[in-house]
Structures are given as C-alpha cells and as structure tokens.
C-alpha cells in the first residue's frame, strides 16, 4: 500500500486534503457550496475537451474552472447568484457532453474523472499540483482578512472600502484553482464533498477561524487517508468513501456537540465554567447568496 506507484497517490492525496480543508472553511463560512460544487463539476467539460484535442487534462480542467468562476461572477452581477451558478454549470456540462460524444475511446476514463482514481496519479502531475496548491494557499493568505470581513460583517467591509463583488470573484478563482489541482485524485463530484463535510464539522467545534481551519484540514486528511486505504484494500471507488465520510463527519460533530451541551446543562460542581465556555458567541452566519 505504501510502495512504488502508491507513493504518488499518498503525496497527492495529502496535498488535496490540505487545500480542500483550507478553502472549504471559507466555502462553508460564505455559504457558497453551490459554486464550490459547480466549478469542479463543470470543469469536467474541460477535461473532456482536453482529451479530445490531446492536451493535458489538468490544463483543460484549469481553463474550464477559471472560465466557470469568471462566468458565475459575470452572470450573478445581472441576476440571482444561484441561477447564475446553475446556468454556468449546465452550460459547461453541455459542452462536456459535446466533447465526450466526439471522442470515442473515452468512456472508462469518464468514470475515474467523475469519481476519482487512486492508482492513476503519474509523477509528472505532482509538480503542477504542488504549484497550484501553493498558489491556493498564498491566495487565501492574501485574501484572509477581506474574506473573513466580507463573510461576517459585510457592512463593515464595505465601509472600509472592500468591494464585495471583487472579493467574491477572487474567492471563486481560488475555488477554481483548488478544483483544478484536486480533481484528478477525488474526481469532480467528490472534491466538493471534501470541502463541505470537514469544514462544516470543524465549525461546530470551534468559533475561532484559525483553529477551525486547522481542524478542518485535520478531518479532511483523516477522511482522504482512510478513504484511500479502504479503497486500496476493498477495490471499491475512493469517491464512495470520501463522499459519505464527509457527511458522516459532520453528523458525528453535531451529535458530539449536542451531547456535550446536554452534559453541560446538567448541574454539576464546576459546571458553571463549562457552560460559560459553551455559550461563547458563535461565528455569525454567512450572508446568503453572496
């Protein structure tokens, strides 16, 4: 499991989990799960196009992901955000269906692109992945404060001269970068599950952004490593484990916090301090549709 070609898989999966954990925190905070689903899913069309003309798959994914992010930003300036996202998604998938019908030898590869592939990471893909991942982390570091500000207190952000529209587009581009690098491992459909589940679980435990990001990365790492190990042993698709474990981790987090709250509510010596800690203000909700 740890020898030869599998080393590439472990390295790639680790990078994927770190990026998904970091970017996912902001996806959950800003309530942009639809865009985080649409950009990787739509970039599938780019991969199909790249195969058709014999180009690198990552290049095709990247062009469609960035195009999708810009398209969502452009369309939502003139209409509702969720409508814009849905239309951009179906347009990219329609193009994907067109490219797919032109190339003949593609059918089995479709599955691994959609749902991920444990064994298919070539060494020459690792370097571009690492580069994209680094760019992602740098972009999040640069955007860290304005992203938090526009997500939590949009009024204050605007008063300080931060343009919410520009930050939103920049954030969608970060999601596009993350999608491009993670898709080859977990697939276009499950990449999004890895961004939502761990980050949502982490946010139920802590209200501090930096701690939530760290926790979300840790949970994402656990899910990906566990998923790959099981997929390697059982031969079932890695997407199944990553997809369901993402939701399961959030379910566990909710149960755990509910149980803790139930215990804290019961009177006990020293229970007062616990209750104070638990009623510490949570992060306010992200504004809907922004």
């Amino acid at each position, binding site marked *: 499991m740890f020898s030869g070609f599998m080393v590439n898989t472990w390295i790639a999966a680790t990078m994927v989990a770190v990026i998904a954990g970091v970017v996912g925190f902001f996806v*959950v905070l800003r309530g942009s799960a639809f865009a985080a689903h649409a950009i990787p899913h739509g970039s599938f069309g780019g991969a199909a196009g790249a195969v058709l003309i014999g180009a690198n798959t990552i290049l095709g994914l990247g062009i469609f992901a960035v195009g999708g992010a810009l398209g969502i930003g452009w369309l939502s300036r003139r209409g509702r955000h*969720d*409508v814009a996202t849905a239309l951009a998604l179906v347009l990219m998938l329609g193009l994907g269906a*067109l490219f797919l019908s032109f190339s003949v030898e593609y059918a089995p590869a479709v*599955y691994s692109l959609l749902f991920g592939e444990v064994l298919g990471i070539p060494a020459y893909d690792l370097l571009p992945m690492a580069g994209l991942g680094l760019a992602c982390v740098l972009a999040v570091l640069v955007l860290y404060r304005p992203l938090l500000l526009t997500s939590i207190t949009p009024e204050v952000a605007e008063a300080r001269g931060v343009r919410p529209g520009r930050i939103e587009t920049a954030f969608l581009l970060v999601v596009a970068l993350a999608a491009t690098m993670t898709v080859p491992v977990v697939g276009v*459909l499950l990449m999004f599950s890895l961004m939502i589940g761990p980050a949502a679980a982490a946010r139920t435990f802590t209200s501090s952004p930096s701690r939530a990001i760290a926790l979300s990365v840790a949970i994402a790492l656990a899910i990906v490593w566990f998923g790959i190990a099981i997929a390697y042993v059982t031969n079932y*698709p890695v997407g199944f484990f990553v997809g369901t474990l993402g939701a399961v981790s959030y379910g566990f987090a909710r149960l755990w916090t509910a149980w803790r709250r139930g215990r804290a509510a019961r009177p006990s010596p020293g229970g007062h301090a616990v209750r104070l800690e638990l009623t510490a203000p949570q992060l306010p909700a992200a504004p809907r549709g922004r």
Partner: protein
Amino acid sequence: MSRVLNALFAPGFFGSGPVRAAVVVGAVVAVVTGAVGVFTVIRGQSFAGHALGEVGSAGGSLAFLSGTNPLWGFMGVAVVAAGLMEVLGLHRPRSRDLATGLVLGAGLGCAALFLYLDATSTTSTGVTVTILFGSLFAVSQPVLPSVVALSAAVLVVIASCYRMLLLTSLSPDLAAARGVPVRAVAIAYLVIMAVAVSLAAETIGAILATALLVGPPATALRLTKRPGGAMVVAGLVGVAAVWIGIVLAYDSYYWPPVDHGWPVSFFVVAMVFVLYLGAGVVAALGRARRTRHVAAPPAMRESGCEPHVDADAA
C-alpha cells in the same frame, strides 16, 4: 417550400419513432419543470433542485443494479434526499446551503459505488454516461404513460396549492401571520420538486433537468413579474428550447464530423442559455424605454413604487 423544409428538418425527421417520443416527453417535462421552477427560482432553491437531480442518479444506478424501473429509483431516492435536506435545515436560510451540500456529497458518494457496481456487473462502461448525462433520443417507450401521469399529478398539486405556495415563497412571515402552515408547505413543495426533477433527470438526463428547472423560469421572471404569467412563459420557453434542440440534434447527423450526430443535451442547454441572455437584453431595452417615457426620476421606481415580484431580490 419543400427545399426550405428539408433544410430545416433533415429527411426522416417526422417519421422517426425516437424523435416522436423525444418531442412528446421533452415537451411534457419542460412544461412541468417550468411550472415548478418558477417557485424554485423565487424561493432561491436552485441548488436544492440541482442536487435532487444528481442524488437521484444514485437511485437510478441502484435500480439499474437491481433490475427495476430506473424511474422509481430516481424518484424514491430524490424524495428521501429532499426529506434529509429538510431535516438538516433547508428551512433556515443560514444552513440551507450546507444542508443541500452535505446531502449532495453523500448522495454522489453512493452514486459512485452503485455506478461502479453497475459497470463491473454488466461489463458495460456506458452506464455512467447514460445515467449521468442521459439522452432525449433514448427515452424508453414503456415509461411514457407513467411520465405523463406523474407530470399531470405534479401540475394538479401545483395548481391546487398555488396561492399558499406563492404567499410562502414571497413572504414567509406574512404567510405565517395569516395562519398558513409554512413548514408543511415547504416540505410539500420540496417533494413536488423532487418528483419533477427526478422525472426530468430520468428521461432527459441530470444536466437538462437542472437546465430546464432553472433556465426557462429565470428567463420568464426577467420578462414578466407576474408569477402566473411567468409559469406560462417558462413552459413556452422550455418547450421551445427542447424542440429547437431536438431539430438541431437531428439535423447535426449531416454536419461534420459525419459519422454521428451532436448530443441533444448540448443544443438544449445552449438554447436555454441563449434565451436567458436574450431575455436580459429585452428586459434592459424595456427598462430603458420606460425610463425615457416616464417623467418620474428613476430613483423612485427603483425604490419599489411598482408592486411586483422582484426576481433579483435576495
């Protein structure tokens, strides 16, 4: 005259069985998703609508595995997924996005497993593409009666709950104050949407289901502010997009590259998108004309002096 007809409709168009089935099913599905979709757009539940179609594909692949009719698989799983979303918090704006996302992620994970099992048990690699992308030309004839019956049922339910649905969609607080059971109506609407979307996803594919659920209603709401009128316009736009898409896809058998036609999904999606953009231009032109004719300062109109359903309001 016949030369023109031949140029528009490639020879054999009207005699082909699959084309006839596609024309009927496409129109039925477009009308139903148009009617349901107007509320989807007003309520801001496009993500949930899209997610139900994709999660339904898990049911479709499961039904394929067990040899039952995929339509029931799609529908059963979509309705269950709708219930899960509601339990997780679709009714609260704060957690709506997250609830949908979590259910979608888990559903897609299950779809990955079932599709994998489908592919290994039947040695046909095309299952993934068939279930996820679908094709209007591959509509199976025996499903037709159930599709039409279910579509009629959805339309009847929408028509009978029209006022309650409209009130809860536009102003939940007002509806609650008037004694409308807001939560129950929301759940009922979610089930209707699940049925409509899975009908569409099973017959014409998940891509087109989302395109028809969101595109034509959003187009219609750009053209008219009346919800009832928007439902009619959405149905017309959807039917037009589907029929033009079918004609183009049929004609494309004679386009390069020659050996096969272009996918019908591509044409329908492209038509939906073009009509949406076109409606935006028409609406902008209409606004510009009104601004020129009416003497009132534009600020007054923008501040909401005209009572209407504002599709762009959050």
